[in-house]
């Protein structure tokens, strides 16, 4: 990405932001900023890094992104670690831990880890800190670590405490640590296929491809089929609303192939939907960014009423499309919704139904809330804010 491409954000970022970022980058010219992660594709973190790193380069920062390599055994161990940090009762045997350290050491030899600031994402590459040669090192945790499985956290914590700081997405996701704990919210990129503007024709064609008829207000939930996402609760809320408003419910989630729990949840959701022709249950492939964009833009109201949630950046995605979002209190949902201004925070199925009815009965309020939601995201959850956070971090940590 060249400087000209960075300028594309001038159209979507708040007033003065691009010039401000250039001035901020002047303070860290020539500094080396290295990201290390386990994957280059898939997941919100990789999506954002794919854009952040080139933009930082365009601003004169020597930004790089290294991805670790590993074996199947390593992938299995790190999956257990990630699950354990999120509270699942997994244990790591001495043999597993030795595999984790051994593959980490091999990566440390293969990768160039020299930089002024090294940001290591998530648990998979975290033990690279044991091979640090210089610079400041920060561990970026994208997981909800509010209640980790204790024995696993005790094992893993010994690596984390060697960092100069740790970054979390919400205060409640952090654990007690003797190093500074910083908070940086995730962000969305408004120029990607998932978030870019679509014409009316593109939206209409997209709905046709998904076999969603037009003519009724659409209530939408975008979430994988998982008990914590509470699609059943959303169906119950829809049924309450349906007595008063002729609307449609679209549940869109990624496929459940090789995921027995997801299959079970999907079956329950299909059973609950019965033969209601106005409930559409979609299984989308992970890369269905265009389809999600179409659905969010076609929807009247987006519901993200999960019982347990990470940051839930899908809330910002929907708000960016000018939609009011009705969400629960789990994870980062309530950090994104301004209750009564950009949508509503609800605590029950009935609460969700009431707010949906209220909005469907007051289209003017719905439009106004959607517009406010978009402006709220513009100022708080776009990649431009995220870029500013990273530049500030680079300056603050490397000046210490």
């Amino acid at each position, binding site marked *: 990405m060249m400087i000209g491409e960075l300028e594309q954000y001038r159209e979507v970022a708040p007033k003065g932001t691009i010039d401000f970022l250039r001035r901020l980058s002047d303070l860290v010219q020539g500094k080396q900023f290295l990201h290390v992660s386990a994957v280059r594709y898939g997941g919100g973190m990789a999506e954002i890094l794919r854009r952040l790193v080139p933009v930082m380069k365009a601003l004169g920062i020597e930004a790089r992104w290294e991805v670790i390599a590993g074996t199947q055994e390593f992938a299995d161990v790190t999956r257990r670690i990630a699950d354990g940090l999120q509270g699942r009762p997994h244990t790591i045997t001495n043999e597993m831990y030795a595999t984790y350290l051994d593959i980490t050491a091999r990566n440390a030899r293969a990768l160039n880890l020299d930089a002024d600031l090294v940001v290591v994402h998530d648990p998979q590459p975290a033990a690279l800190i044991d091979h640090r040669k210089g610079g400041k090192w920060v561990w970026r945790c994208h997981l909800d670590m509010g209640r980790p499985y204790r024995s696993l956290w005790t094992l893993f914590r010994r690596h984390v405490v060697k960092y100069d700081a740790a970054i979390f997405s919400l205060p409640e996701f952090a654990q007690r640590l003797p190093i500074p*704990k910083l*908070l940086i919210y995730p962000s969305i990129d408004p120029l990607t296929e998932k978030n870019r503007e679509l014409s009316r024709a593109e939206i209409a064609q997209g709905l046709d491809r998904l076999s969603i008829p037009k003519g009724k207000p659409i209530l939408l939930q975008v979430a994988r089929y998982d008990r914590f996402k509470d699609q059943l609760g959303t169906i119950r809320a829809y049924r309450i609303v349906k007595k008063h408003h002729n609307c449609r419910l679209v549940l869109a989630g990624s496929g459940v192939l090789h995921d027995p729990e997801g299959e079970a949840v999907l079956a329950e959701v299909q059973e609950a939907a019965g033969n209601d022709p106005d409930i559409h249950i979609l299984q989308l492939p992970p890369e269905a960014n265009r389809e999600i964009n179409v659905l969010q833009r076609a929807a009247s109201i987006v519901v993200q009423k999960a019982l347990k949630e990470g940051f839930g950046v899908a809330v910002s995605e929907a708000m960016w499309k000018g939609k009011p979002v009705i969400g629960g209190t789990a994870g980062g949902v309530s950090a994104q919704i301004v209750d009564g201004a950009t949508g509503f925070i609800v605590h029950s199925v009935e609460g969700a139904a009431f707010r949906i009815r209220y909005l469907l009965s007051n289209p003017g309020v719905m439009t106004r809330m959607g517009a406010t939601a978009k402006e709220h995201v513009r100022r708080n959850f776009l990649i431009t804010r995220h870029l500013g956070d990273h530049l500030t971090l680079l300056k603050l940590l490397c000046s210490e």
Partner: protein
Amino acid sequence: MTTAGTDNPFRFLGCSEIQEILGKQAEDERTLAELLEEVPLDSIYFHTHSFFLRHRFIERTYPNDFAEWVGEQVRDHVLAERLSVVDPFEYSSLEALREDVVSLIDDHLSGLATVPRAGFGTPFYFSRSRILEIPTGWEVRTLREFRAAIAEVDVSVIYFHVFEAHLRLQREENDFSAWIRNGLQLSELADRMRALNPYLGSLERLRSNLLTMCDEQLAKGGQE
């Protein structure tokens, strides 16, 4: 009243904030008061002043994090309202502000049989600010240039010269009104800008008010 610019230009500075989580949390109002006494002053700053930097567009029901938590999570509307009228601009230091907030909560609790707690709401998480000052490159010598810059700068510039100035300079004058008074010698306009209370709106509303004041002054004529 001057008709030309000044030799003493106004240089606009912005700022960027990183939030540091302190790892201290309150689930009831007494714990909130106890922790308020021990957290660093940067935390008092974060929850009262830079609240506006984080909520720069949408005006919130309450003007600081303490009032917002008490009102929305504890649902103790009386204390939330009492905390809302604590105007940080009336305090000469963060320490004085801290003392008054603690004393206000203690006074409220002394009249209650039980300590209100968040219950189903989320705890109050204490954080503190790490603020980085950033030169914007904007430099102006006339009111017209000043107006043009205010319209275009990142909104953190407004925050820095109004909110930060209050603590940095330890005086009631903000950076804008000080320069308008001393640089442009427009004391009437300076008085109006000085009287702006930034705690009664968002930063964008503050920007809008500043622009209106500049426009009205420029409309009188004679100003460059």
